[in-house]
């Protein structure tokens, strides 16, 4: 179901590393030029969803396509917020705890779930996501339930700038965590499992174990991002982590393209940014979202990351057609 683009070689890795560093530097310079609170807010949201979408891709690359990933973000968010509120601990401690709590739950459900083949895993994850909302409502004394949680400890003061740099740093850290997983032998074994689980098992790879590992790391990162979101947004509502949110994540991932690590980054950025550009249209925003989706599925089957390859092959085909015409 997933197409992967394999790139090897030191040269292309160096090129990529340089591009990443340049992007990071450019991102770091943004607050010097952009002072609008609104746009900084959008960028912060983009950072957060880049992290969560990338973690979804990491999990998906092991053959587990989760339709409930937003709920893991929610677990991290609520855990951190509630710990800070009830126990009075600083968010700098509760945020990592939120990440670890999410990871623990992921491992707990991951072991039984890892036995399931793709589509069954997807269905179970969908219900896990909905179930988490129900659990949230059950414990509404602590979580605020349907009405949400307010009065969360903020990380910084009123200015968005420290938040911007915090989330930029968090994004770089989380992407680094996920990237390393993907590029070491662990990631190779995960991709092997995805391509042929029989062969993977016959060379000694513990399929279930690796799946849980991917789930654990992915959910740790998602929970961490969720926790950060909680102490930034200062308000949490169930609707941010429901089925719709999980589907959004999936769409970000598919639009960006699963073939490359940059896919979720681009997908999240594009699909959060463009509707915001059209924010003036208010209720018409879903139309814009739908429009972007239509554009992508009709024009870009592999998502945005597949675009360079598509353009290249389009140019080649034009060139060949031209040469044919000239020759005849």
């Amino acid at each position, binding site marked *: 179901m997933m*197409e*992967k683009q*394999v790139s*090897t070689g030191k040269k292309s890795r160096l090129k990529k590393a340089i591009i990443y560093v340049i992007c990071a530097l450019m991102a770091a310079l943004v607050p010097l030029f952009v002072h609008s609170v609104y746009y900084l807010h959008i960028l912060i949201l983009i950072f957060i969803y880049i992290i969560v979408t990338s973690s979804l891709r990491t999990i998906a690359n092991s053959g587990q396509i989760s339709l409930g990933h937003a709920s893991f973000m929610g677990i991290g968010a609520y855990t951190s917020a509630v710990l800070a509120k009830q126990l009075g601990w600083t968010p700098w401690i509760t945020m990592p705890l939120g990440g670890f709590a999410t990871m623990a739950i992921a491992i707990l459900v991951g072991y039984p779930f890892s036995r399931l083949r793709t589509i069954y895993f997807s269905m179970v994850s969908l219900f896990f996501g909905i179930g988490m909302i129900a659990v949230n409502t059950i414990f509404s004394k602590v979580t605020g339930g349907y009405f949400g949680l307010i009065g969360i400890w903020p990380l910084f003061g009123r200015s968005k700038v420290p938040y911007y740099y915090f989330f930029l740093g968090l994004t770089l850290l989380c992407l680094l965590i996920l990237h*390393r*997983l993907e590029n*070491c*032998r*662990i990631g*190779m*074994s995960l*991709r*092997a499992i995805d*391509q*042929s689980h*029989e*062969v*993977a*098992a*016959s*060379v*000694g*790879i*513990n*399929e279930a174990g690796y799946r849980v*590992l991917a789930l654990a790391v992915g959910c740790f990162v998602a929970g961490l991002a969720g926790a950060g979101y909680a102490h930034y947004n200062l308000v949490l509502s169930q609707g941010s982590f429901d089925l719709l949110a999980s589907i959004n994540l999936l769409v970000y991932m598919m639009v960006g393209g699963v073939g490359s690590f940059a896919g979720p980054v681009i997908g999240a950025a594009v699909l959060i940014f463009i509707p915001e550009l059209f924010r003036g249209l208010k209720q018409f925003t879903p139309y814009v979202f739908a429009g972007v989706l239509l554009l992508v599925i009709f024009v870009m089957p592999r998502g945005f990351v597949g675009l360079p390859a598509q353009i290249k092959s389009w140019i080649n085909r034009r060139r060949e057609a031209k040469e044919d015409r000239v020759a005849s």
Partner: protein
Amino acid sequence: MLLEINGLTKHFGGLTAVMGLDIGVAKGEMVGLIGPNGAGKTTIFNLITGFLRPTIGNIVFEGSDITQKKPHVVARLGIARTFQLNPLFADFTVLQNVIASFYLHPRSSLWATYFNLPSYRRNEADIMKQALEILKLVELHNVKDDLAKNLPHGYQKRLGIARALATRPKLLLLDEPLGGMNPDERAFAINVIKKTRQEGITILVVEHNMEMMDIVDRVTVVNFGQKIAEGVFEEVRENKQVAEAYFGVEHPE
């Protein structure tokens, strides 16, 4: 006895695929497992390697019972296999296929792998060396950067063998390794298998092709999941039951 199969029986609902099978393979031997199509040979392999659980019976490898063990555990204990339909890591290159299969020897810990510790880097360099050696052995080093899914069929089969060898097995189960090959490819594959034997690896091979019978020590014949004959190939060939089982198949020679 490296591998012992005792009373192996497998029921699939109403169908009995394997019945009361007793097979023994001694260390260093090469045993052929032959029988008509549908005789249950691949099922036997699946049972040995843990892809299926037997209904009755047990499997003992190097003295320990591996009957209920999962496939990856069986692999870790030293049994490798190829598959009849030869699945591969289709989107990996030839070289990556072999490298990915070098999961077990040498094996880096998760910690060392993730944090790129010197032990991991040493292991990976070693693996690269060994992988290239294996590719040279099966003569696929010229296409090492081609995607596995783009390879012609014969090459893919060779890759399957290379992949199995990467696990440094003690026992190698080959499931119709010559399937779909032309005579040149077959000769080459048999050569590779001979070289593998020289390394001391015990081999159990399922094969229809008679060229394989020249290099096995002995054969076990199964039909309808039951052993019907066993012994040196020339003797078994004369066996009446065996001839009946193969009725309709070309008489060897």
